């Protein structure tokens, strides 16, 4: 089932990646090639088979839900593209 350019635009929006018209067409061709490969899975009989999410089974180990302070706030903040007074800056979201 080939994708259409509106599918590509929709998933690019879901993934929050800007995409131009020209890129949409190029990406569409590539994604359809990849999905042709992926479609092979549809014909495999998997009745009664449990999905495998971790090679060794078992769930994920959870740690205690306690906050841990990082000792060096400055080291974290200095990677921020925009910050002020130890806070991350983003465009205004609430008027």
């Amino acid at each position, binding site marked *: 089932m080939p*994708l259409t350019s509106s*599918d*590509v635009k929709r*998933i*690019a929006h*879901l*993934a*929050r*990646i*800007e*995409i131009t018209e020209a890129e949409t067409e190029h*990406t569409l061709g*590539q*994604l359809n*090639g*990849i*999905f*042709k*490969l*992926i*479609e*092979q*899975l*549809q014909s*495999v009989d*998997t009745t009664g*088979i*449990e*999905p*495998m*999410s*971790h*090679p*060794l089974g078992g769930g*994920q*180990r*959870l*740690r205690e839900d306690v906050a841990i302070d*990082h000792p*060096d706030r400055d*080291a*974290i903040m*200095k*990677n*921020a*593209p*925009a910050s002020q007074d130890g806070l*991350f800056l*983003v*465009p205004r*979201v609430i008027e």
Partner: protein
Amino acid sequence: MFEKSVADLGRALAAKQVSAVELAKLYLERIERHKQLNAFLDVRPDVTLAQARDADARIARGDATPLTGVPVAHKDIFVTRDFASTASSRMLKGYMSPFDATVVEKLGLAGMVTLGKLNCDEFAMGSSNENSYYGNVLNPWDKTAVPGGSSGGSAAAVAARIAPAATATDTGGSIREPAAFSGITGIKPTYGRASRWGMIAFASSLDQAGIMTASAEDAALIFNGMLGFDPKDSTSVDRAGEDYTRSLNHSVKGLRIGVPKEFFGEGLQPDVEKAVREALAEYVRQGAVLVDISLPNAALGIPVYYVIAPAECSSNLSRFDGVRYGHRAAHYGDLDDMIKKSRAEGFGPEPRRRILIGAYVLSHGYYDAYYIQAQKVRRIIADEFQQAFRQCDIIAGPVTTSVAFGFGEKAADPVAMYLSDLYTIPGSLAGIPGMSIPCGFGAKNRPVGLQLMSNYFEEAKLLGVAHQYQQATDWHMRLPPGAKS
């Protein structure tokens, strides 16, 4: 000195025949001389030399491990406090991590000296290292050939002996394929054995750290310092530590080596097949027995992988939003626009492609048909390995269908590139240990790798089987002509 193994460097340091500072300087000079390979992304001699001085002090105090003072370089997927950590992406250009990855920390605690950070495919996505934002890495054996990927910088650095060892990561073959293409030894352990803490995430149910070295013995020594339980990684396996060198001298007499017929079918190039069959014959000479086995659905590994890996990558890479770290577009409107533009600019074509595939297979109405179905077929493949290991102790075969290809040969066709990992993906999906060791040369005198796989937690046995081959052959000792000085 640069031709010495990790084991010999450790001995020379302990015997005070060489100091850690002298060794660090020697390798830093070699890195500079072989700069054209583009293997390193960040080198900071002041940091390296400070670590080397600490190692020398430790040796003088008599408090050294076999690794103290031995240099190592890290794939730029591991975050490091003292070197930039970029994942070879524009997205993380100049990023300075506030902490060290557990693997980096553990090798540092063992006394290894960091030479710098190594180029790789962007976010470890690729099979040729052509997806790095910072340019191609050249294969030291033939500079018109790719070194393999995604750990291309690690492979090239060890092949050219500008680092005696390099960390690497393997999601679908990113250690074994470049090790094969670059003529070195590379091993990934059982999933969960190496900590993923501080390893920039690609596909979390598959990502696993490993090591690249000249020999299996060197890999075993480094595994002793590198692997182990880490409470900070929720998929780390809580299991006692072990000595990975303990089986190096075990004979392969009577060892049952399973040879999967699916790894010798259509597509396998005759030059690779010849070198691999000769390697198997060497094992037979040493008393091993070859057993025909079958992994009937191994070829489905590629479609399974290209659902699961993009799905997990699309989830993992959603953290890059241009807010807390990473690239932010220069011009934007509202918050949504800022995020979309920053991600479009910060990610290269391959991560963008995989994020889109992932977003699609995880989207409403498609999740069961793609992601859950892929996880079910993943289990079928993993179960087939367990069937096979009832008949054999080790599985052996080729790593790749061909020797290293040339730059640009597959870059325009993602599907052709994806097929490069045909023989490595099944083991990654199962989560078993796998390695590649040099076993000869094929077309254009480019290296060929022999793939060896064991069952879960049998790294020591796997390393021993590899070591026995390397005791009888010298492929792993050969140096690319350009690396001899």
